[in-house]
């Protein structure tokens, strides 16, 4: 018994060591005074200053945020509507066909999803005799497409859990169907919508492979910019940038965890429990 608990203490430390080793290296070298990402010469903040002067990187960062916000909002609205519809479909084969299609972008390798959309965009461009169809619009369309399944699969389980009698009761009490949706159903599925939105946003910010094929040369996102930089020798400014992003996320997560822990604590103390 004691031996087992020792293992369960040491083992996670080992795995987390493995997961965080490259991140530690990355953060360390973001403070390197030299140009290398392999030999540490001394502590400096020069790369942190450098990123704010690198206009191409800042532009890429801006593109990333814009695409992520636009695509996450579009996919969340469309996906939530789709989940409600799927939940109400009576034709069994149609429902199943829709769900299967929804699963395709999740099961397909990203590279296949990326090139399949690239081929479509290039083909349509060729039909209208245009080259260079790839750009901001195609990038956003692609992001919406790969986010949709995650939104739908986050919302659907919540819809299945909602009590249909509640919205019926609301309508009996004089609500129109639309009012009862916004007042009764929507609040119940909100957690699913929020986690779908968060997931969509995260996937968008992080995506490289699909973006790489559909973005063309005009609208670089940050991962694509990083990719083109890692083709040559990377300077620590990229490390500095991702350290900043990493710290921002860390702070966000810690704060949100503290807030939820506090509100749960309050609930518990209200109930009179420990």
């Amino acid at each position, binding site marked *: 018994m004691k031996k087992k608990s020792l293992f369960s203490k040491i083992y996670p430390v080992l795995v987390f060591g493995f997961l965080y080793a490259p991140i530690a290296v990355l953060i360390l070298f973001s403070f390197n005074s030299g140009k290398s990402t392999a030999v540490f010469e001394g502590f400096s903040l020069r790369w942190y200053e450098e990123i704010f002067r690198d206009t191409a990187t800042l532009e890429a960062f801006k593109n990333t945020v814009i695409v992520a916000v636009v695509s996450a909002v579009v996919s969340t609205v469309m996906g939530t509507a789709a989940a409600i519809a799927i939940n109400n479909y009576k034709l069994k084969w149609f429902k199943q066909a829709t769900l299967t299609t929804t699963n395709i972008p999740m099961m397909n390798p990203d*590279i296949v999803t990326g090139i399949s959309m690239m081929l479509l965009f290039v083909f349509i461009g060729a039909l209208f005799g245009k080259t260079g169809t790839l750009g901001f619009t195609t990038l956003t369309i692609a992001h919406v497409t790969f986010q949709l399944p995650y939104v739908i699969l986050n919302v659907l389980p919540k819809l299945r859990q909602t009590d249909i009698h509640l919205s019926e009761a609301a309508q009996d009490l004089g609500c129109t169907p639309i009012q009862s949706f916004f007042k009764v159903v929507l609040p119940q599925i909100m957690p699913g919508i929020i986690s779908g939105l968060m997931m969509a946003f995260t996937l968008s910010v992080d995506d490289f492979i699909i973006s790489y094929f559909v973005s063309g040369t005009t609208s670089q996102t940050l991962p694509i910019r990083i990719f083109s930089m890692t083709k040559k020798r990377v300077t620590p400014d990229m490390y500095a940038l991702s350290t900043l992003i990493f710290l921002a996320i860390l702070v966000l997560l810690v704060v949100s965890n503290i807030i939820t822990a506090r509100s749960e604590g309050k609930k518990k103390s209200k109930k009179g429990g420990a």
Partner: protein
Amino acid sequence: MGKKSTLLSRVIGAPYILWAVLFIIVPIGMVAYYAFTDATGAFTFDNMLEIGKYTDTFLLSIWLGLLATVISLVIAYPLAYIIANSGENRQKIMMMLIMLPMWMNFLLRTYSWMTILEDNGFLTTTLNSVLEGAYVILDEAVKILGGGLKKPFEPIHLINTRGAVVLGMVYNFLPYMILPIYTVILKMDRSLIEAAQDLGCNKVQVFKNITIPLSLPGVVSGFTMVFVPSVSTFYISQKLGGTGTTLIGDIIETQFQTANNFHLGASLSFVLMILIFICLAVMNKFSDDDGEVII
């Protein structure tokens, strides 16, 4: 609900249906179209026949992907089990620690491994001096016994090997294995375990007869979530595998980004897609879940 509102609730799905047809189904049709046509648009089998040249690449990709998936499973299962059986706060913190690295750009995390595995990097030099020390001791021991090792010590390389590629895959996709397994273990009906214990099962028996079978859907889900991106990767093999390890993803990427041979690229993607769907179908046979994806 009234008839009108159910009708409305079905109609709002229309934009998505349209979107899915346009941007999921039609693009797959495009892949098939490009795979079976030549530059003039005429039907041809040439691209498909050309794929034969890449059989070894396909096999290597599948082999390395499988290896990475199995290693991930071996690492992830005990961790997921430990986390699911910890206290609530510890669970939250550990899950956060698992998700957190995914927020650091995947390209840079992989690039960072290049620093670690480099020939004059810390890890390789330490490993080599330890190995060399062991070798010298062994050599002396053999000499005492009246022999001598034939070959002089050769330093090992970590970067630009297949091992490094597998390491990169395991590193990048490990969270996708941990998450679904953790979820199923957490949701498992604890009363079943208690019942088994009451009926006289010891810990090993409980684990073998209850925990493992019940966590199978999570394992299957994790297996596909690691296997699919591993098989189709191109960045990891480019950065950690050097020139010796070319995977199918590398070849597809080249066709689209530099060689501009969309037709060959499309036919390779088409075959890759079919292979993966076959794998998924086989995997789903192993689990009896109702087709719902566990995220």
